[in-house]
């Protein structure tokens, strides 16, 4: 199963990355590569839109943690957009809902 990744750079200074599909051990490397690429191109504030994600496990969480650390190290941040209870539950049971800023919409995320 392929992972859909769409990058929107029209919301500067934010880069919005919309993810679709299932994020697991097979597909998470593609997301990791994209985040590394964006950071290397100078992106500092990245919003990951998870509304199109149907499944996310700890491999996906690991990629998001890695991305957040990388961007915070560049004085930026990685924030999330998610309202799906199934996906939010993964953050809640790992306590990572306290580590990430999670917005309900992309508009709210780019408003800071």
């Amino acid at each position, binding site marked *: 199963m392929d992972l859909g990744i769409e990058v929107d750079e029209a919301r500067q200074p934010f880069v919005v990355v919309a993810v679709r599909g299932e994020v697991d051990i*097979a597909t998470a490397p593609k997301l990791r590569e994209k985040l590394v690429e964006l950071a290397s191109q100078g992106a500092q504030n990245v919003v990951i839109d998870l509304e199109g994600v149907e*499944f996310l496990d700890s*491999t996906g969480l690991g990629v998001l943690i890695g991305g957040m650390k990388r961007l915070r190290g560049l004085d930026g941040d990685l924030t999330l957009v998610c309202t799906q209870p199934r996906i939010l539950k*993964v953050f809640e049971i790992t*306590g990572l809902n306290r580590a990430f800023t999670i917005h309900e919409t992309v508009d709210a995320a780019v408003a800071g």
Partner: protein
Amino acid sequence: MPGSTDAVLSLEIPPRAEFVAVARLVVSTAAKSRRSLADDKVADLTLALSEACTNAIEAHDGKDEAERVTIRVDEDDERLVVTVEDQGPGFDLLELSAHPAVTDPDRLNFERGLGIPIIRNLVDEVTFASGDSGTTVTMVLHCTPSLGDLGPDLLDLDEIDLEAAWDDAGLDEEGSR
């Protein structure tokens, strides 16, 4: 799994990442068809299975393509038992406790190691048996067979007061607690 469980299915997958999605699909379909489970419990089981399969595949580390990860689903009247068995080198469960708690800010220094806490949170019982010849993760959900599974010969739905049965079980009309 010891005890008098009946086999529902057994699935062998190569220890490769792209097969985890297949395992999720097969096990979630079996769980939905065999048990009276709310959708969120099926999703919990699917996530726990994904974590166990991910650990199994990482244990194999792509070294031997001929090796297999075996996933079994067994059941009895009150339980659905999902077992994931790998042939990797095994691990020391005690070492995992060296990670900071998830509430500790230092936890962000560990991008791995979240899988087992997730499994523990999502299923009713879990056991890990690990040795030189591999690791077996046994996950148990407490649940009853689906009505359809009992068959029309055993149940006459016209004579059952379903609303009262839902009330007795503490469930609403859609079967949610």
